[in-house]
């Protein structure tokens, strides 16, 4: 029987367990996503839901994969970065399973996992990655032993910004898909601040301006919610695309990977695909199921690290809520 890994994702709203073998074949993936009735992600409430549900999720993942927990050979968990109280749950579950089953444990950086699952699922070798989600906005590529960060947001992550705007507009979390839908209904662009600094981005001014549009006396007279959603998307995505293009010109990579929750947005896909073509680079979007937070990507990255340098000691499995991906070496990648 092939060696199996159980991967646990627990950095924010999603508690997810994925089971896959060491060749990357997926046996099961079960997600439990925190959905606030109002407001955003309150860490204490997210934590509570994950605490209540983790056992069910682990058991369902095992039963869907039709394997016994005794057949698992490796435990991987999201060690960084994320909400502290939430990261802890994943770490507890992983340590417990590892010690009860007496099998190795590996801590994984969540951002690197997003790239690695993309490389696996899109059969891509050495991409420039635009990783856009509720908690992260990063342009990264592999260079001198690490996933270097070429550009990133200086304040709000893109997904967070769109969700916050949606919430201000009275839409329920998660707002991203709703904003995308509304934007399709408009062709009327309202000028908004566009802020790119070299390869870094700033979204806070854009957010404030868009929010002001909602409470202006012109709202629903000169323009409506659709137009605001459209203008917000067009501005923010053009910024993302511009920094991606800069990084692409700089690194001269031949592949572009779009990943993270916001990668599901068709308009963003269209824009990034456009610049990829212009630079003769292959463009791939990580399949939706694996683009958002999921246990499979954690499992797969855990397998890669385990194969390269073995497991972690329990003492090394302390969570690191603020670890950057460019602080970690990537021993399984040496080519370039």
């Amino acid at each position, binding site marked *: 029987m092939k060696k199996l890994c159980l991967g646990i994702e627990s950095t924010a709203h999603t508690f997810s367990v994925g089971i896959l073998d060491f060749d990357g074949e997926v046996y099961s993936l079960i997600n439990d996503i925190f959905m606030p009735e109002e407001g955003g992600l309150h860490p204490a409430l997210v934590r509570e839901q994950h605490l209540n549900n983790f056992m069910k999720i682990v058991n369902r993942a095992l039963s869907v994969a039709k394997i016994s927990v005794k057949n698992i050979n490796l435990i991987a968990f999201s060690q960084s970065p994320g909400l502290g109280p939430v990261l802890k749950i994943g770490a507890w579950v992983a340590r417990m399973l590892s010690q009860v089953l007496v099998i190795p444990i590996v801590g994984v950086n969540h951002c690197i996992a997003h790239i690695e699952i993309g490389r696996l699922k899109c059969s891509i070798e050495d991409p420039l990655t635009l990783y856009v989600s509720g908690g992260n906005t990063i342009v990264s590529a592999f260079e001198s032993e690490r996933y270097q960060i070429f550009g990133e947001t200086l304040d709000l992550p893109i997904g967070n910004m769109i969700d916050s705007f949606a919430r201000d507009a009275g839409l329920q979390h998660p707002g991203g898909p709703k904003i995308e839908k509304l934007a399709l209904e408009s062709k009327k662009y309202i000028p908004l601040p566009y802020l790119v600094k*070299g390869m870094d981005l700033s979204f806070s001014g854009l957010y404030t301006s868009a929010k002001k549009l909602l409470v202006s006396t012109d709202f629903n007279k000169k323009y409506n919610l659709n137009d605001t959603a459209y203008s917000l998307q067009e501005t923010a995505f053009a910024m993302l695309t511009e920094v991606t293009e800069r990084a692409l010109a700089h690194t001269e990579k031949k592949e572009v990977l779009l990943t993270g929750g916001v990668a599901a947005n068709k308009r963003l896909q269209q824009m990034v695909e456009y610049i990829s073509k212009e630079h003769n680079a292959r463009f791939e979007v990580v399949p939706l199921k694996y683009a958002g937070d999921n246990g499979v990507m954690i499992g797969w990255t855990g397998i890669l690290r385990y194969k390269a340098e073995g497991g972690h000691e329990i003492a090394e499995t302390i969570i690191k809520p603020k670890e950057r991906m460019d602080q970690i070496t990537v021993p399984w990648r040496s080519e370039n």
Partner: protein
Amino acid sequence: MNSDIYREKLIHKGAEANLYYGQWFNKKVIFKRRVPKRYRLEELDKRIRTERTLNEARALIRAKNYGVNIPQVYEIDVQNSTIVMKYIEGEKLKKILRTLDNNKKEEYFKKIGRDIAILHKNGHIHGDITTSNLIITQNEDIFIIDFGLHENSDKIEDKSVDLHLFKRVLISSHGKDYEVCFNAFIQGYISECEKENKNECNLIIKNINAIETRGRYVKSEDRL
């Protein structure tokens, strides 16, 4: 097109702009053209290109008033988001740095430090000081080019960021020469900037270290 003005060849294709070498009333010039980006809305694209072209042209013209070598602007064509400026004959510092002996390096970087201090003193933040944006001419004049990320500011913070970015460039592109070059650069910078205000000068230099520790999620001991 006017026969007195013509583009001869594309010499550099950047992420944002194309540089063409050409002639402008018998002068050797560079046409810096910000090309349309079709992924963004035409309206938005036009706005960004116009804003940036005007900003850069303004910066080039104003920053030239203080005795620092900066290419002369001949024409601004907003319609085509193009700046026509003097062609500077020489080599990029990036290309020749390795061939220089330490004395030359020190001499050049002190001069660069002084020039940047003069710009800062007058409220000009270059925004993208790199060894590719410094040109050494045959008579060893140093030209500062590419004011695409220029900002007007008198803030200590902005000045420190400008210096910090240059430090990062030196470390990543010229690791071996970094110490000699950056020390000379800072020496030159201080010599000019303390003439004006010694206290502010110290704060600018001190603030560079503060910035390094400030990156997103960076622990002080891990940065650089």
